[in-house]
């Protein structure tokens, strides 16, 4: 297991290094980096200062070294708009996005797995067909449109839930969270649901396909032949086998959920890092965009790593063969 973890850590570091190089090439090496990294309002003096600070008068490999050096120290530039380090700015918004994504994940799994199991165990029932039809809608309707419809229905027509913002927050371990206050929860519910819909459809399909396949396996027959209750056969023997692909795919999707909560955060004016990205793009706040890119890569890599470890924990065949 330890060898496995070390090898995976090495792979992760490699991916981050490759991505850093790509970002460097995209932002620094191609075109004039001063254009990209200096504020449009910057005067000649400022531009010279930036050029010196970034070492743009030096050879490319030195520039690369400096970029990596600064990045390793958490310095990806300062926001022109907020005049704060870009990384810090994003880190401030990260908890909100993280909370949103986790809530969406809980909804997607909590609703998706039972519905998928139901559809997989009763594929020809009316309920089973309805679940599958619903999941097709979840897949095919554009996410922002689903979001607008949610706002229209629950905020405008019914007036049950607020249409935007994060609501009241409380601090846990120094991080502001909203799921512990009623007001925060009300603000969280719609955007989380919006972000969850697509993943929910995905979980439903994965679970259903898994259930149909696993139900035909000899070990399920054998489990039933032992006289186990239906609940135990499905809840343990079937579910544990289905969870392997679901966890894998969801882990990958969690990365995309955090990174691209952009649409949902924009529709619901939710102050997460996706909204920050959109705001930064419209204000040409380029260091923030670069920082966002790098942060996203790191988040992706970390999540993939965690998923692989969870995967190894639930599937003994992976764990033991890789050890």
């Amino acid at each position, binding site marked *: 297991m330890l060898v496995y973890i070390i090898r995976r850590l090495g792979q992760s570091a490699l991916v981050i290094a490759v991505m850093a190089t790509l970002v460097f090439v995209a932002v620094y090496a191609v075109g004039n980096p001063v254009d990209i990294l200096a504020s449009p309002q910057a005067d000649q003096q400022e531009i010279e200062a930036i050029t010196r600070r970034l070492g743009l008068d030096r050879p490319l490999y030195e520039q690369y070294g400096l970029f990596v050096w600064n990045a390793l120290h958490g310095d990806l530039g300062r926001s022109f708009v907020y005049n704060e380090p870009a990384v810090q700015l994003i880190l401030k918004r990260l908890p909100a996005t993280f909370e949103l994504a986790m809530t969406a994940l809980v909804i997607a799994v909590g609703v998706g797995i039972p519905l998928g199991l139901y559809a997989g165990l009763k594929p020809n029932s009316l309920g089973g067909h309805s679940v599958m039809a619903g999941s097709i809608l979840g897949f095919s309707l554009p996410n922002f449109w689903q979001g607008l419809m949610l706002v229209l229905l629950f905020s405008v027509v019914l007036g049950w839930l607020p249409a935007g913002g994060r609501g009241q927050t409380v601090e846990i371990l120094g991080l502001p969270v909203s799921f512990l206050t009623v007001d925060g929860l009300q603000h969280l519910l719609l955007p989380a649901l919006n972000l969850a819909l697509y993943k929910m459809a995905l979980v439903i399909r994965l679970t259903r396909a898994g259930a149909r396949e696993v139900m035909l396996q000899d070990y399920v027959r054998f489990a039933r032949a032992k006289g186990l209750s239906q609940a135990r056969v499905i809840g343990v023997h079937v579910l544990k086998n289905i969870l392997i692909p679901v966890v894998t795919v969801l882990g990958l999707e969690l990365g995309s959920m955090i990174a691209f909560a952009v649409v949902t955060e924009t529709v619901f004016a939710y102050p997460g890092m996706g909204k920050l990205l959109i705001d930064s793009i419209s204000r040409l706040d380029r260091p923030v965009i670069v920082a966002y890119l790098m942060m996203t890569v790191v988040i992706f890599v970390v999540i993939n790593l965690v998923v692989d470890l969870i995967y190894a924990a*639930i599937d003994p065949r992976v764990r033991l063969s890789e050890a």
Partner: protein
Amino acid sequence: MTSQPILEVRDLVVEFATRDGVLTAINGVSFHVDRGEVLGLVGESGSGKSVTGLAILGLIDAPGRIASGSILLEGEDLTRMREAQLRRLRGKRLAMIFQDPMTTLNPVLRVDTQMIEAITAHEKVSHKAARAKARDALAKVGIPSPDERLASYPHQFSGGMRQRVAIAIALLHRPALLVADEPTTALDVTIQAQILSEVQTLAQEAGTALVWVTHDLSVVAGLADRVAVMYAGRIVEQGSVADVLENPAHPYTAGLIGSVPSRNRRGVPLSQIPGMTPSLAKLPPGCAFAPRCARADAGCRNDPPVVAFGTARMHRCFHPLVTAEAAA
């Protein structure tokens, strides 16, 4: 007629609703198994052996169903039981093991989990007691250092060892009947022989009757007391192993015996039954074996009736190789 049989199957019909219409996979099958007896169930692939076994355990799933007939376990009709009642019998009085040991155990659960749950499903015992019982059961089927093996996952066992684990699980509660669906077919010949004799011994000790499904007549010859030969969802011949193998009545049985190498004298070429097992969707009218039968005539387009003859023998054939008079 002296004592009640452990299992009595009467006129069992199992149907599958498919796209091509309703297929009758089991068509009026009747047999019984006495206490501690071994019944061999033989036939080619697709003849309905597994479906018969699953029907006994009540494990036929949609689109299949038991359309008619009864299955009496110690006098109680399983086909009329509710699922909860049936569940209490499964694993306790009735057990089943399957063909492929590589797929019978759940790959993501440890062996102890899979054994202990089988114990606690039927007995109120502490986890510790269940574990001890599981360990003893593993030791009994010849698994070395059972204490350590309990904590292993199935993929850490060889095929033969996995089948031993399955057998240990099946016999945990000393069931009255064990349906063994070709449990040794997937194994090496030497391991096959070991496991056969072990199951035989264990079943005898536990007083468990066996329905041993196989397409291997030599297994039947060595293991079974009686044999039932299936063809296209019907039992076409039944009787004691000695009678049936020495003097087969049904041409299909004779064909099966003729294709077993060990039973042929040296120099005599092996015979093959010509043709293929018919698909259930396109069964010929009357005797399903007619297209492949050398003795067939126009009369065989009618259903051959069950003919009882000799000592507790039966066949379904208009032109049997052994006539009732000769056998008597």
